[in-house]
């Protein structure tokens, strides 16, 4: 095998992080997307902007704030300590928390768009057919926005795989715990091990291409009429 053991470890960690993050975001981001899609509140604009922040913030800024918040003197850090979990920075779960924030808009926005494109009518029809609000969500809204969920899942997963700055700030570079593939490549380059860097970079390139290929072949936009 031409990838080293540490490479495989980094790839495995990366996949684990991306999978866990995506699964958590499916649960956390869906209600937010639903609210943003359906609300007529004046808070829709501000909340939408906050959700989109990670799109434009430098990852180091996000990472910095998260580090401060989750550190020993930060509110989150004090909470986790008092719960006996300890401190999150430089742990796998610290990375998960950071990734959830970092990839939030990548899950919310496609799902929100999907919810919006359903319109009111199918939900009204379901209401006249005796479906309660929760029932309408699961029996009508979810199935009709499935393509949006697939897109969102793929984007979130891929985006988490590609994360670098936030990982460095929150996770550092601990082999097997927080050293993901992108950090591993950075290490190789710093150590001038260009051959190793090439191999891993090529794997990432091919992976990213395949993910995007899947996204474009799936093309939910073309399926709806």
């Amino acid at each position, binding site marked *: 095998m031409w990838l080293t053991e540490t490479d495989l470890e980094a790839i495995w960690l990366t996949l684990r992080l991306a999978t866990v993050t995506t699964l958590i975001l499916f649960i956390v981001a869906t209600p937010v997307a639903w609210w943003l899609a359906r609300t007529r509140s004046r808070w829709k604009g501000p909340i939408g902007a906050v959700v989109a922040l990670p799109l434009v913030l430098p990852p180091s800024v996000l990472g910095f704030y998260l580090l401060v918040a989750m550190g020993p003197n930060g509110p989150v850090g004090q909470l986790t300590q008092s719960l006996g979990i300890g401190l999150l920075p430089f742990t796998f779960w610290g990375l998960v928390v950071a990734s959830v924030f970092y990839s939030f808009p990548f899950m919310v926005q496609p799902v929100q768009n999907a919810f919006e494109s359903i319109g009111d009518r*199918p939900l*009204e*029809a379901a*209401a*006249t*057919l*005796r*479906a309660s609000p929760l029932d309408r969500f699961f*029996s009508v809204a979810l199935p*009709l926005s499935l393509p949006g969920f697939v897109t969102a899942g793929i984007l979130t997963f891929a985006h988490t795989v590609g994360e670098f700055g936030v990982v460095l700030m929150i996770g550092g570079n601990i082999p097997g715990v927080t050293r993901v593939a992108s950090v591993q490549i950075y290490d190789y380059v710093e150590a001038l091990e260009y051959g190793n860097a090439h191999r891993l970079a090529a794997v990432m390139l091919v992976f990213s291409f395949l993910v995007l290929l899947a996204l474009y072949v799936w093309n939910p936009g073309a399926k709806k009429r």
Partner: protein
Amino acid sequence: MNALETNTKTRTAAGDRPGMLPQIEARFRVAWPGFTLDVDERLPARGVTALFGHSGSGKTTLLRCIAGLEHAAEGRIQFNGEVWQDAETWVPTHRRPIGYVFQEASLFPHLSVLGNLSYGQKRSQKLNQQRAAAQDPRKARFSLEHAIELLGIGHLLKRRPAALSGGERQRVSIARALAVSPRLLLMDEPLAALDLARKQEILPYLERLHDDLAIPVLYVSHAPDEVARLADHLVTMDGGRVQASGPINAVLSRLDLPIRLGEDAGVVLDGEVAERDERWHLLRIACCSTSLWVRDSGAAIGDHARIRILARDVSIAQAPSRGTSILNSLPARVLSLGNDAHPALALVKLDVAGNPVLARLTRRSADELGLAPEQSVWIQIKAVALL
């Protein structure tokens, strides 16, 4: 008697105070920018009540308020003594015993036709079981089969909505609304999105609903021909207000209504097919204690027949005329004269054996005939449409 009829009757009997006619009391005030709905009406909860008006007259908004799809800040709706909305009460749409047919079929694209039909049926059965597990088991059991049979969609059950024609889709959507065993059926221009051929395809099914089921229907429409064909009771709306409300002929024959049906002004009469003339392909319809001859539509003797007489097809003579091509000539009595849309024209309201009939003629003719109330005349009906 079919299952649904039984169903509705038992429920009405149970839900009603004795001696009270079932009715819908609706009072709503909705103020949106550029539009106000202000309605306070009692409607009969039996037969077909048409809400008629131009687009923007508020008829759809009224229907949506009744369904609970629109939450009017000021409103009160009571159905057969059951309050669905008032200052303290708000029954959400999914708990109201209604069926709703939208203008576009609005089928669920991710479900098959059968999936669409059973979506509401399953849920309403569950609700019914929760409410009254011990009661008449027939109650919960209308009849997906009956709805399917009534709308003639048995051959479509496995298809996806995308694979249906517009008319088929609307039939499925009507069956879907019926399959929840509604006690009130609300229909929002169910034919408006369809072309003429599709309309002709669906109208007979709507008539079957009318004739076969004892469910009261509120039917929103801006098409006079649909109203004439289906309605028992007519409510006309304009600018968010009710203009007139009453039994269909009482409203259709009013001369003072600012809303004019224009070319479509006329009345409808209900009668029975009495005789078939094989040689001339005509049917004799017995109605208003007289007879009218119409083209043979294939209806059976004894069938209920509704005929429509447009004002423009009725002319007035002082004596029964001979040597005319017109088949239907009846004695009548002038009730009143009114203005028509054009200053050259007048509308005359006549009484034909207790039924109102409208005639349109020029003011000059009216003057030459010396028409005045209580005068006895003969009317000649050029065309009688069997609906």
